[in-house]
């Protein structure tokens, strides 16, 4: 297929998938422009692959709104490093995808521009916050998409949608141009229809960036060679991630996948990550704390929605801009974050959470030091849930990320792989690797991917 035909085909697929509400910005003209650009230059390693981009990563040709009224119509005057690299490697920016406002949520219901529907059942959520990107890949619109993770926002929707979702080591991909939520946790991450697609895109966007002081001082990650089997590997099964109340379908899927892991030649051992149960509360102190500062810039002074007339002073401008511009979940997290950093509360909340974060990370280090190569856990405690089911109870919503938060706090690479279905809904299994071992994780995932039929019912 020519690049122009590929662009037109992608446009047709985007149009056909409009009912998902997974996309915030796209146009045929833009796709034609991307195709023409790719035709004009040497075809990079991605060979024109259409890639959808979460709408919290800044692009020059399409707006970047973070699914927030406060950035409605905002077009960035500069391009994210990851986008520059993606395009230079022959990626076609296909569309900007819907998300929970400022990436705050686990269901993509907290978008100012309407919720995203699950491709298999519109009454269900696709997970979040990168639900638009996950749904588009699952619906076969694009082979890969960029999302972002702060506490599982790619792995969790990947599990719900039945696609591959890879969160790299913190610092593997530049955050320059990723609109900040929780800076010490934020990672541009990748959805793929297959492990290979995800790995190729991750390789293209990875590498040190002088404009992000937290990037890993390493050249771009090579595309890992897939393993034929898992011989010689020891895979740890952390007991805290297999609680008694785990959804039976998820448990059955894990049982089958663990059996397959052994069939492929790996040894499995039970291990313990005793502080992982504290990951969600720790995360919900640290991420909002950072967010409360990161979102302070949306003050209506330099950009944002048109200024209402007749404001008496700058305080009124702030109140009008932020009061109307931010949705309830964002406001909730800014308030939590402001509270935990306040004089007199800092030590009790932020300080304590920082110490807990160190313990959570230390658990992983200790386990990996005993000769464990990878960890394997369920990605989510349940398959996709119904829209509206958890919106009234933020804590229930937060607990959807119970198995993904610890990896984010530890800065480790982790990924969700579709391992089967329960009641027709996808189930994800999570692989976790030591810091920097993104490549070996993806190589092992490729072997497991070949050994499992992700559409097979497990019970």
């Amino acid at each position, binding site marked *: 297929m020519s690049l122009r035909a590929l662009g037109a085909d992608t446009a047709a697929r985007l149009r056909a998938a409009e009912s998902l509400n997974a996309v915030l910005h796209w146009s045929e003209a833009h796709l034609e422009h991307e195709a023409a650009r790719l035709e004009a230059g040497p075809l990079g390693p991605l060979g024109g692959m259409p890639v959808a981009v979460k709408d919290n990563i800044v692009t020059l040709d399409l707006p970047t709104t973070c699914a927030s009224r406060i950035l409605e119509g905002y077009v960035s005057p500069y391009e994210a490093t990851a986008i520059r690299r993606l395009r230079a490697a022959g990626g076609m920016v296909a569309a900007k995808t819907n998300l929970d406002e400022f990436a705050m949520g686990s269901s993509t219901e907290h978008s100012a521009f309407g919720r995203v529907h699950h491709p298999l059942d519109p009454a269900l959520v696709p997970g979040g916050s990168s639900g638009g990107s996950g749904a588009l890949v699952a619906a076969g619109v694009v082979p890969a998409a960029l999302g972002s993770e702060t506490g599982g926002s790619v792995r969790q929707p990947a599990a719900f949608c039945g696609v591959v979702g890879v969160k790299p080591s913190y610092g593997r991909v530049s955050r320059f141009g990723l609109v900040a939520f929780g800076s010490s946790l934020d990672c541009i991450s990748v959805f793929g229809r297959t492990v290979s697609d995800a790995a190729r895109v991750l390789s293209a966007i990875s590498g040190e960036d002088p*404009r992000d*002081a*937290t990037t890993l001082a390493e050249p771009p990650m090579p595309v890992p060679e897939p393993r034929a089997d898992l011989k010689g590997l020891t895979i740890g099964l952390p007991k805290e991630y297999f609680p008694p109340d785990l959804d039976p379908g998820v448990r059955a899927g894990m049982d089958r996948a663990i059996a397959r892991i052994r069939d492929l030649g790996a040894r499995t051992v039970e291990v313990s990550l005793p502080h992982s149960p504290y990951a969600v509360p720790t995360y919900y102190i640290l991420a909002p704390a950072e967010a*409360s*500062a990161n979102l*302070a*810039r949306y003050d209506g002074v330099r*950009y944002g929605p048109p200024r209402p007339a007749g404001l008496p002073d700058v305080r009124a401008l702030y109140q009008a801009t932020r009061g109307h511009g931010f949705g309830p979940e964002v406001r909730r997290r800014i308030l939590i974050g*402001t509270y935990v950093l306040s004089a007199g509360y800092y030590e009790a909340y*932020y300080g304590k959470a920082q110490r807990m974060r160190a313990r959570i990370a230390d658990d992983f280090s200790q386990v990996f030091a005993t000769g464990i190569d990878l960890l394997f856990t369920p990605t989510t405690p349940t398959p996709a849930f119904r829209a509206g089911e958890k919106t009234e109870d933020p804590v229930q919503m937060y607990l959807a990320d119970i198995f993904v938060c610890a990896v984010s706090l530890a800065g480790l690479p982790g990924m969700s792989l579709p391992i089967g279905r329960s009641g027709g809904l996808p189930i994800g299994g999570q692989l976790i690797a030591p810091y920097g071992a993104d490549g070996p994780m993806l190589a092992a995932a490729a072997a497991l991917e070949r050994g499992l039929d992700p559409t097979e019912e497990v019970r």
Partner: protein
Amino acid sequence: MTWETVIGLEVHVQLGTRTKMFCGCAALYGEDPNTNVCPVCLGLPGALPAPNAEAIALGTRAALALNCTVHPVSIFARKNYFYPDLPKGYQISQFDRPLATGGRLVIESPERGTLEVGITRLHLEEDAGKSIHDRFPGLTAVDLNRAGVPLAEIVSEPDLRSPGEARAYLTALKQVLVYAGAGDCSMEKGHLRVDGNISVRRRGETRLGTKTEVKNVNSFANIERALISERDRQIALLEAGGRVTQVTMLFNAASGQVRPMRSKEESHDYRYFPDPDLPPLVLPPEWVETQRQALPELPGAKIARLESQYGLPGYDARVLAGEVALADYYEATVAAGADPKAAANWVMTEVMTAWNETGSLPVPAASLGALITLVKDGTLSLQAAKKVFAEVRSSGGEPRGVAERLGLIQVRDESALEEWVDAVVAAHPDEVARYRAGETKLVGFLVGQIMKRSQGKADPKGVQPVLLRRLQS
């Protein structure tokens, strides 16, 4: 009742880097508004700070010049507050882990002489933009050229005991920072800003009184005036049985008075926390050592050396060390053969006047050295030398040649001197008669007349014997 004043100062110094603290924008002064800006210093969504190595080096040199301990690990923190000229809604600063602590600075107190003032800490931070309230009626304009410019904040211990000492501290601080190459410290450009913390207590009391903060002061003279005004206000309040409350006072240069800031403008909870965009700043000891090596001789050491090496009085040494350029020029002049004390006199008068007028050095040091030597060996009178200096300054040239061209070389030839002496004796018969009658002090008058007639060319040492011989004949 006598009172003791206790003052500590917080000084913000703009580091003299080419670019801003966390982006590549030029750190230039006086450009058109909002021209030196980029996504990073505008705080656009997704932009991230990348630390400027030059700013860290200059901050480190400033800290070392102030005898601080530079810490191997320091941490950038976010200071959160809303203000229209603060693009990110927080300022990147350092809080509980500053770059350097525990320094000291020697100052010349007007009341207590030479003394050491403790430096509590020096930390790095970025500047905010500028809010301009008088450009558009009823509106505030924001210029973000200054946003992100690197600053060092230097906090002193409460070791100062008078407004005059505060001023002396600032003078010494500025001198050390300029020597260290940290920045130009120009108050006019806002490159040095001062906030003062001041309290008073009864003499003999060891506990500190309640302090207030004095802000908005734009010159060293005004910081002294502002502190005097605030000190007097506190003393009057206490003597009237009142109590000092912790407030921020704004100085009004026109009235010379301070007034309390509205309470709405203060009482921030800045919610400091480590900036997750910036890893801890790690400075290996070897790197710190190279910064120490890069420091030039600092004012204290230079003053001591000028005194011992050239036998100069302390006053001369301090004046010359006031500007590195003048001290260097002085030493070059001596190296060109000039007498050290004579050279100091020239540099502190003619040269410094020219330097203050134009900001540049008037004649090459070698020329001044040669000129001073011509005076010393009697070739030129001091008066003639000043003419030569002015001519070399305006038109260039080599001093001896210029002196010859202007006919200023002193004449010692006896027959030439006799001609002038005879003419003067002939022209002043009354004075000559009175001299001969015993009024010997008239010699001075007659020598003056001879110098005048010779247009300063006659060698005064040669004139006297010829004149006396003629008067006694």
